[in-house]
């Protein structure tokens, strides 16, 4: 008979950039159960609506997470703009789309590196982060920040991105494409990587759907669902397909994210082409009154922003549901039955963002 033992994993662990704790119940080398406990990064920032007014909250919302910061800032602004019936100008819509895809690109490259590092492919980690720096350069030129951008405000954008800069972005992305393709191909076609990822943590389409997973985790099991297709911002005018894979294993999740890297480049190029001229913001008068929920596709999956206001300077409630939170039940399900040595890869493959989850 095999022995049962419990191995604590985290909160401080070499493969984890962020703290999460798992109690892994093992039978020999096989995980029979994984019990997550979270709360190491909980700050309680939703309660800051009581001390920061609805304009300032846009900057607090960005700091929900430093990786998906752009999306959080935009999601919050979008919800408040809907409450206040503000129609933002078309140019701002397009610029927001471009920056959103840029942030998806840098987030995916970050994940790419961490995953490679997770199974010991350190040169690929360095390569991914080398390319990521070039993306951050563009984001910094456009917004002024590498990590926290704070370019969105209620009613549009704080500053315009000049035409020449957009043109240079196009060119630089063109130059990067070859690099990106080589890196993506290395990850997806390397036999060592393939054998490490294939068949690990398989979840069927039914399982991921009932467990409520989101984003590439969901699409890796063959479900075609992408909130970008809801048609917010300029996504309606852009031609792109939802990337899916039917295997439902770690390789499939990796495949979906890696292909989304190349897709994002394409979306940015299309958006730059179509960006109209004009203003980037509209004046905002009065205070919001009402409630709204925005759904957007973050790099890690669908995120929801609920805002309730009562006509005062301070909001009544802000609530965020983030993709990693939705992915945790499916993650623990995929851990069950896997080998102990595969745990870091399984966790990294969903691109966990604990700061988002706990806020």
């Amino acid at each position, binding site marked *: 008979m095999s022995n049962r033992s419990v191995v604590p994993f985290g909160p*401080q662990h070499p493969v984890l950039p*962020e703290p999460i704790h798992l109690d892994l119940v093992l039978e020999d080398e096989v995980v029979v159960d994984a019990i997550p406990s979270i709360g190491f990064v909980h*700050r309680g920032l939703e309660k800051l609506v009581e001390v920061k007014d609805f304009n300032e909250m846009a900057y607090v919302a960005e*700091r929900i997470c*430093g990786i998906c910061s752009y999306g959080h800032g935009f999601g919050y602004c979008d919800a408040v703009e809907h409450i206040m019936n503000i129609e933002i100008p078309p140019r701002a819509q397009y610029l927001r789309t471009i920056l959103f895809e840029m942030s998806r690109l840098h987030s995916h490259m970050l994940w790419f590196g961490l995953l490679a590092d997770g199974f010991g492919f350190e040169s690929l980690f360095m390569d991914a982060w080398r390319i990521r720096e070039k993306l951050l350069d563009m984001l910094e030129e456009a917004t002024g920040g590498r990590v*926290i951008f704070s370019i969105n405000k209620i009613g549009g954008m704080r500053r315009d991105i000049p035409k020449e800069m957009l043109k240079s972005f196009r060119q630089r992305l063109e130059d990067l494409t070859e690099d990106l393709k080589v890196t993506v191909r290395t990850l997806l076609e390397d036999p060592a990587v393939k054998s490490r990822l294939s068949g690990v943590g398989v979840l069927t389409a039914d399982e991921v759907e009932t467990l409520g997973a989101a984003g590439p985790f969901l699409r890796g099991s063959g479900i075609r669902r992408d909130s970008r297709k809801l048609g917010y911002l300029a996504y309606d005018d852009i031609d792109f397909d939802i990337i899916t894979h039917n295997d439902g294993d770690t390789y499939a999740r990796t495949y979906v994210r890696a292909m989304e890297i190349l897709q994002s480049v394409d979306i940015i190029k299309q958006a730059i082409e179509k960006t109209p001229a004009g203003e980037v913001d509209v004046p905002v008068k009065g205070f919001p009154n009402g409630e709204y929920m925005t759904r957007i596709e973050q790099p890690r999956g669908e995120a929801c922003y609920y805002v309730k206001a009562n006509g005062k300077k301070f909001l009544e409630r802000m609530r965020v549901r983030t993709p990693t939170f939705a992915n945790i039940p499916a993650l623990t399900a995929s851990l069950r039955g896997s080998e102990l040595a595969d745990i870091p890869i399984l966790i990294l493959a969903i691109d966990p963002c604990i700061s988002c989850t706990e806020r």
Partner: protein
Amino acid sequence: MKLSKSPWLLHYDASSCNGCDIEVLAATTPRFDVERFGIINTGNPKHADILVITGGVNNQAKSVVKQIYSQMPEPKVVVAAGICACDGGIFKDCYNIMGGVDKVIPVDVYVPGCAVRPEALIDGVVKALAILDQKRDAMKSHAACEINYDKNSDTKEKNQA
């Protein structure tokens, strides 16, 4: 500047938003490349000389921070990276935030910024190195005193015998 040793870093996210953490990682990658000085981001507190800590520390992270700090061998230096680690930053008013790493463990170098830039972080680590040297020298002279003391006590005992 001459490095007296290649220090190893330990990084811990104590309730930060992730922004500073990815910048700590970015400092080790090709653009900034602190690894060329032999500075390695280790995952083991027992191998680390410098603790780079981000975030304002919440109640649950408090004991973890203390534990990691106590597991590091002497001499050790703590670098608070980012404004949240310095004094709580934008999350200062949150009910769950202690408001800075120095509320929990002693901090030697403060590096502000939201998020902290890799250049600033490297500057902070270089400052931390000087402090590490000082601490090591202090330990050496302290150890030397102890050895002398032991010798004295030996002779004392012999004399008594």
